[in-house]
């Protein structure tokens, strides 16, 4: 191997090594055995076919949300509102699933369309606030995330409460027609996975080859220059947020129809925030997203075992995920700094 490619490999591995070192220190500080804890996480994800299927379950919303967020990142937007867009999709889907009677081949497409519509609505609302109200999308998105969560609780404990009384476990189960078919006795489902894979490929080509992708990137690079070149900045920002909303809404929709078969209070499960980390760690490049998503899903599925076996809080998984991204940003900056010095 050449020296330069060896160096590249070392730079690429550095964030992971640094994360292992820091998380080991954190675990020692908390009085736990680092090797055992990290082993439990890996073991938790790979111990059985059922667990492996759970990794696939976690892949789907992460892929969909990350695909959507690549679009908004291209336009230079900090779309922290993905969580709320997911929730809006789940709410619209629940509304259809609980209110409409239809055979399965009508019902499932309907739930998907409803989910996307809900997400589009929520995303466009952020876009409107940003484009016409000059409210920074970080605050618009974040504020609407909290509103979406409150709306979910209101619906679960109000209009959509089960006949025997509302609980934190959510609404009544959907009718069977609104259940995505699953693989064997696992929780994984092929249709959402296929949609998610198609979505990330579509976004890759959209941003690389399409005219709209080019326009979004022009806005992301320099919004004022793009405006002078005759690109409708306001409108395209709203469209970008709506497009991301469609994909995030779809993610929320399949969380209800494929995973829980009902609406639960924390239906978005933090996947919206996580996908932000995914996209950052992918260096905003679609081709790296699947690998990062797989890595994050393994941690997501494996870390609850920390609670069962070691009485540690499963938030260690989140610590690992965000540390990798933090070190990735720091190492990248350091590398660029050194290269500037040399060159």
């Amino acid at each position, binding site marked *: 191997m050449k020296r330069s490619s060896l160096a590249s490999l070392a730079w690429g591995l550095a964030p992971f090594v640094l994360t292992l070192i820091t998380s080991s220190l954190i675990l020692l500080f*908390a009085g736990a055995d680092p090797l055992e804890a990290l082993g439990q996480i890996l073991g938790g994800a790979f111990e059985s076919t059922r667990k492996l299927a759970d990794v696939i379950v976690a892949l789907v919303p992460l892929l969909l949300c990350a695909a959507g967020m690549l679009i908004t990142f291209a336009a230079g937007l900090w779309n922290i509102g993905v969580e709320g867009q997911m929730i809006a999709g789940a709410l619209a889907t629940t509304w259809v699933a609980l209110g409409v009677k239809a055979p399965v081949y009508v019902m499932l497409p309907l739930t998907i369309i409803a989910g996307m519509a809900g997400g589009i609505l929520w995303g466009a609302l952020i876009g409107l606030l940003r484009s016409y109200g000059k409210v920074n999308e970080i605050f618009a998105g974040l*504020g609407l*995330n909290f509103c979406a969560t409150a709306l979910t609780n209101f619906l679960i404990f109000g209009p959509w409460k089960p006949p025997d009384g509302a609980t934190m476990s959510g609404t009544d189960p959907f009718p069977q027609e609104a259940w995505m078919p699953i693989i064997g006795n696992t929780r994984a489902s092929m249709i959402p996975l296929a949609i998610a894979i198609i979505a990330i490929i579509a976004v890759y080509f959209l941003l690389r080859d399409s005219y709209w992708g080019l326009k979004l990137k022009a806005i992301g690079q320099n919004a004022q220059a793009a405006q002078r070149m005759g690109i409708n900045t306001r409108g395209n920002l709203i469209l970008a947020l709506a497009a991301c909303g469609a994909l995030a809404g779809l993610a929320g929709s399949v969380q209800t129809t494929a995973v829980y078969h009902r609406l639960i209070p924390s239906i978005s499960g933090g996947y919206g925030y996580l996908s932000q*980390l995914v996209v950052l760690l992918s260096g905003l490049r679609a081709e790296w997203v699947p690998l990062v998503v797989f890595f994050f899903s393994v941690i997501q599925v494996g870390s609850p075992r920390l609670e069962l076996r070691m009485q540690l809080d499963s938030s260690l998984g989140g610590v690992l995920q965000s540390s990798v991204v933090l070190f990735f*940003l720091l190492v*990248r900056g*350091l590398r660029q700094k050194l290269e500037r010095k040399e060159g």
Partner: protein
Amino acid sequence: MANTLIIETIRSVLAASSPLVFAALGETLTERAGVVNLSLDGTILLSAMAGFVVALLSGSLMLGFAAAMVVGAAVALIIAYASIALKQNQAAVGFVLTLLCADLSSFLGQPFVRVPGPSVPHWPIPGLADIPLIGPILFNGDALVYTSYAAIIVIWWWIAKTQPGLKLRSIGERPEAAHSRGVPVNRLRYIYTAVGGALVGLGGAAYSLSVKLGWSHRHTAGMGWIALAIVIFGGWSPFRVAFGAYLFGFLKSLGSILQPVYPNVPTQIFQAAPFALMIVALLLVSGDFTERVLDYLPPKLRPIIASLLRGSPPAALGKPFEPQ
């Protein structure tokens, strides 16, 4: 009788808002220097946990507050280093730290969830607390509340009236010009980011040791975002920022007063209200909407209202500075 109730309400709003005052003032200092510390929501959680745990284990409140301020400053310094020395996006690093600190607070704080612990003692200022009306409102709290009043005045004075404050404003507005006059732009940015972060940390410990006692998962979740929004709402000026924090505290306690009065209104409305309010407040101060409303006001009132609602961010906010 009604008077005592009103006095008590105002007093409790002022006291309950003190963490937000600290955090929003800290962020104001940081942003006036040209750096955005987006990590507030995570920093407040981590410092609230650290402050509570250190105070509990050491038996010293002072050590607890010191630990929280060190945590706040340390997180802020990561952002400063990543953005100033390494030229990484401030929003990216800040957001990642938000999540990292929040999860770290849950992980490390787990053994201390709902453990009873120390709190800042109530301490009416002798003499001053007996002044009619003002006394029971302003001087009937704890040391932390008094510190928050002092912080508002000191930070306003520092930014507006002192020589170092002039430098602070210049590095946030026109770093190139400041640099050519010999102001060490980036070194000052490090310092103000760290000091601002320490104040945010103090705000975190103010929650766990005075306002919302103890520790639980996601103890203060959401408050950091509110503090960030209040800085914008307050137009980056200390008095208006503090006013924003108190206004928010007042509306929040109004919610808890109104909730039992209107039992038919779903509780979720009261949960979502602070964040809906945040969006509306930002719409008010940044949208074109305000301009149009101002046009309808009598000309005499216009500049007063405009100066209350309008405020522009420091011109170099979020932009890295490279000395030539």
